[in-house]
């Protein structure tokens, strides 16, 4: 016999406005094994919780049902409440009579009251069979892995390392820095991104707690929060980085010339190259697809020029394994694939470029040293047309979402252009302008007033070449006029998309992504830097388009989550997990393939399923699928579910 107490919450009028709580309390108090039932205005308030505590003691309750809002809101609250007076927390259950009852039956109060009683009775039946459970404890490896060395990864690594924990930073390129290093100046202050980012990069390179693995990618991750095992591929750079001092002689003499990715194909780099002069680590790699020795079998000029004998054409990919307790994913973004845009002559006309290309043209350290010579003939453009929302906010053709930063960088670029070419004119075609950040609207107004940027509300209908000009036809929907501009340069604000390979990586890590490949956060409002899988955290543009301030804030947020995870020596894992009855399991393997957390393995010898309790998230997928009935989810055993169904089925 249980001694169950039932506490019914009014939730102000949220519940009591629809459900007759007094009546429910009275009816429920007669239910079997219930020794006390009452109602109260706000069960989650301090007096509400105190009332539960008192009654647990006074009535010697051994189980408590709180009939209130969804368990996702206050289950933990009430479990802690009863634990504080010595009850096992898993002997506390929530009956959801708000989201599942009062809110959906506002117009039928009687039915709502009847249903509330049923919901509570079903939960009482579940509680009767609830075993007291003890959380599992798992040790924590206090080292973090950060994937992606853009400003997000850099910030997160520094924060964690400064708290005293080791960090392994994996970057796929030969240097950290990410897109921020490509930018000319940054809104809304127009400061130099290299000036503010390179000191952080150097700190990463020098930090005793940070192990930087550049030109590397994560190959495999196994394990679970607190105990991940990571296999990392160190891609062959064909340069022995231990010997190399970064002198750069090898690059000077390399005869192969290749369009530079870092300069967005507006200049050439060598086949042996670093990304930019302030690279961290400042070590070159050989691009074997373009190296004459690799492609034609002759050259090895770099080798001859390296007095330290660091060039090694025989180098192969190698692998390292690291144990970490938490993982931050900060793989950033790319601009939408150029081949995807059909309109606007992109790819067809040299003088139609994207935002990052203009950043490089405007960057003082860029290929044109900040003077925006246009790609086709090197003339300084006098009329520049900017088109916003290319690919963004276009659910029919490309992406429905807003890329969030292009309104701002367009103002910025138009301004910097005007500062470089004071007699030039910038036009911006926009759908509407979204400048909602600190100082952002003021920045826009400055652009319009001081730099005379001409904003035209409307879409561009056609772009075509006319001599050395690019004709832009569009409409100004505010005046109703047709617009025709003979432009020298057209700049497209292309949609931001997750970085190449991010989707594959997410699959490897078992992380969920949205329809476009951006990583999904655990809760859009309340858990924005955590992923749904314990131990994984998100930072930067990998989660959604965002600018640098937001990226850095999220990175610091993720780092502090990792710090708080590492502040404990042991982690507690919910005991609501699946168990296998090995007497019953036939080793069919259905559960193994279905488990989204890869918590199950079929033991080849015993031919039965084995569950790793630390990996199991208690989702129940396997229990529903297991045909033999060998699997049970603790806290949701079949007997419990059946007895709940019986309450509802009874009419």
């Amino acid at each position, binding site marked *: 016999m249980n001694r169950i107490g039932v506490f019914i919450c009014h939730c102000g009028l949220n519940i009591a406005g629809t459900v007759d709580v007094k009546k429910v309390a009275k009816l429920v108090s007669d239910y079997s094994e219930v020794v006390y039932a009452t109602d109260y205005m706000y069960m989650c308030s301090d007096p509400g919780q105190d009332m539960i505590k008192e009654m647990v003691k006074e009535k010697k309750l051994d189980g408590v049902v709180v009939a209130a809002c969804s368990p996702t809101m206050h289950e933990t609250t009430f479990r802690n409440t009863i634990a504080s007076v010595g009850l096992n927390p898993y002997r506390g259950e929530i009956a959801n009579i708000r989201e599942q009852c009062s809110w959906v039956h506002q117009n039928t109060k009687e039915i709502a009251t009847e249903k509330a009683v049923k919901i509570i009775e079903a939960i009482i039946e579940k509680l009767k069979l609830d075993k007291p459970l003890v959380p599992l404890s798992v040790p924590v490896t206090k080292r973090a892995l950060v994937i992606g060395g853009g400003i997000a990864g850099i910030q997160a690594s520094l924060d964690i390392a400064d708290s005293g924990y080791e960090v392994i930073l994996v970057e796929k390129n030969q240097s950290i820095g990410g897109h921020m290093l490509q930018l000319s100046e940054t809104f809304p202050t127009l400061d130099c991104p290299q000036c503010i980012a390179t000191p952080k990069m150097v700190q990463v390179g020098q930090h005793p707690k940070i192990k930087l693995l550049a030109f590397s990618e994560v190959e495999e991750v196994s394990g679970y929060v607190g105990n991940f095992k990571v296999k990392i591929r160190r891609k062959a750079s064909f340069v022995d980085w231990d010997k190399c001092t970064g002198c750069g002689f090898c690059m000077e003499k390399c005869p192969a010339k290749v369009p530079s990715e870092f300069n967005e194909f507006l200049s050439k780099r060598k086949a042996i190259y670093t990304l930019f002069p302030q690279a961290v680590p400042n070590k070159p790699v050989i691009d074997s697809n373009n190296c004459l020795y690799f492609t034609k079998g002759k050259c090895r000029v770099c080798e001859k020029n390296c007095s330290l004998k660091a060039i090694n054409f025989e180098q192969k990919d190698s692998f390292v394994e690291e144990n970490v307790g938490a993982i931050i994913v900060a793989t950033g973004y790319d601009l939408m694939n150029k081949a995807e845009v059909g309109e606007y002559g992109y790819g067809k006309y040299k003088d139609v470029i994207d935002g990052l290309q203009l950043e490089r043209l405007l960057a003082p350290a860029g290929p044109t040293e900040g003077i925006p010579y246009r790609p086709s003939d090197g003339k300084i453009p006098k009329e520049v047309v900017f088109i916003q929302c290319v690919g963004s906010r276009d659910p029919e053709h490309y992406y429905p979402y807003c890329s969030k930063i292009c309104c701002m960088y367009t103002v910025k670029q138009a301004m910097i252009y005007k500062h470089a070419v004071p007699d030039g004119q910038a036009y911006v075609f926009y759908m509407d302008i979204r400048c909602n950040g600190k100082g952002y609207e003021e920045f826009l107004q400055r652009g319009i007033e001081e730099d005379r940027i001409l904003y035209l509300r409307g879409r561009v209908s056609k772009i075509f070449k006319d001599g050395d000009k690019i004709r832009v036809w569009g409409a100004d929907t505010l005046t109703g006029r047709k617009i025709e501009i003979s432009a020298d340069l057209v700049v497209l604000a292309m949609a931001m998309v997750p970085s190449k390979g991010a989707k594959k990586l997410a699959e490897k890590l078992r992380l969920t992504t949205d329809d476009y490949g951006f990583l999904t956060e655990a809760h859009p409002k309340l858990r924005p830097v955590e992923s749904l899988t314990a131990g994984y955290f998100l930072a930067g543009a990998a989660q959604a388009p965002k600018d640098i301030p937001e990226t850095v804030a999220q990175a610091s947020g993720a780092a502090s989550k990792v710090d708080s995870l590492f502040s404990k020596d042991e982690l507690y894992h919910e005991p609501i997990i699946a168990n296998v009855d090995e007497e019953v399991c036939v*080793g069919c393997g259905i559960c193994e393939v*279905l488990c989204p957390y890869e918590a199950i393995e079929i033991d080849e010898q015993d031919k039965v399923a084995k569950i790793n309790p630390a990996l199991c998230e208690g989702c129940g997928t396997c229990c529903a699928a297991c045909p033999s*009935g060998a699997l049970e989810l603790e806290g949701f055993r079949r007997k419990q579910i059946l007895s709940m169904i019986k309450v509802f089925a009874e009419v």
Partner: protein
Amino acid sequence: MESKKITDKKKLKLAIGLGSTCSGCDIAILDLGVKLLELIGLADIVFWPTVFDFKYSDLKELGDKEIDITLHHGTIRTTEHEEIARILRKKSKVLIAFGSCSCFGGIPGLCNLTDKKQIFDAVYGENLSVANKENIFPEEKLLINKNKSITLPHLFDTGKTLKQLVEVDYFIPGCPPPMQLIEGLIPLMKDVLGGAQLPEKGTVFGSKKTLCDECTLKKENKMISKIVNPVTAIVDPERCLLEQGILCMGPVTRGGCEARCINVLMPCRGCMGPGPETEDQGVKMISAIASILGVKDEENLTDQQIEDLLSGIKDIVGTFYRFTLPDALLNRKVKERR
């Protein structure tokens, strides 16, 4: 009584009673062959209407708990079945539900998809082979002459299992129960005779695992992309049938039959009933199929494609509840909506 005369003190009394049955279970017992002689050596048969000329009066004359072991087969469909089942319970020390009908309702239990009226309308009226212009339907009370009438048993709307009526000690499932399980009666009888500890009440004869455990076909990956018809499919004789898209009930069915159907490449129909940890065989199979059918490309399936996938299942109740409908959580069709 004849049986009383030949009763040896050291022999048990065995009864075999029935409900709605095809008598396959009786044949299965007779099929014991030499072992049958051993069985008869251990027990006198005090009631077995299919095989010997026993009358109900013979049964009624026995004292309470006088029968040591009773095997009951067949579904409970009529008042007569109910009465016999209750008497057998009263007169038996050990009552065993024998065969799928008695255990779970069996094939006659599919009657729960209709009711008495619908059955009568079909059998005595609508069927094309029936000529019944006068609309004569069987009646329970039949006047033989002015003074005498006889009463036929009443047919229930709903078929029932033995345990839904009376307490049952053991279950021997199968349609009919496989030989090796029936042979298990002999050690049981010896234990009863010798006064040894008997199996726990409610024990089901058969394996503790489901059929897949004893099925020898090669198992690789249970994720299936479509359902195929076992009759028209070209079957790989080495590989698990379910993995080939054939609906095999093996995963949710208690083992113990030594996979007699699989061995001739017919998918398991589930006659041994649910596995030991399953309350409802059909639901378990439905949720297993729902978990594995088309999951590989789940996110990309359109509603139409999902419907097409499911249309491979031709007869849901007949497939998933062929032998267990009366025993299921939802055990009959709604008779009349409130």
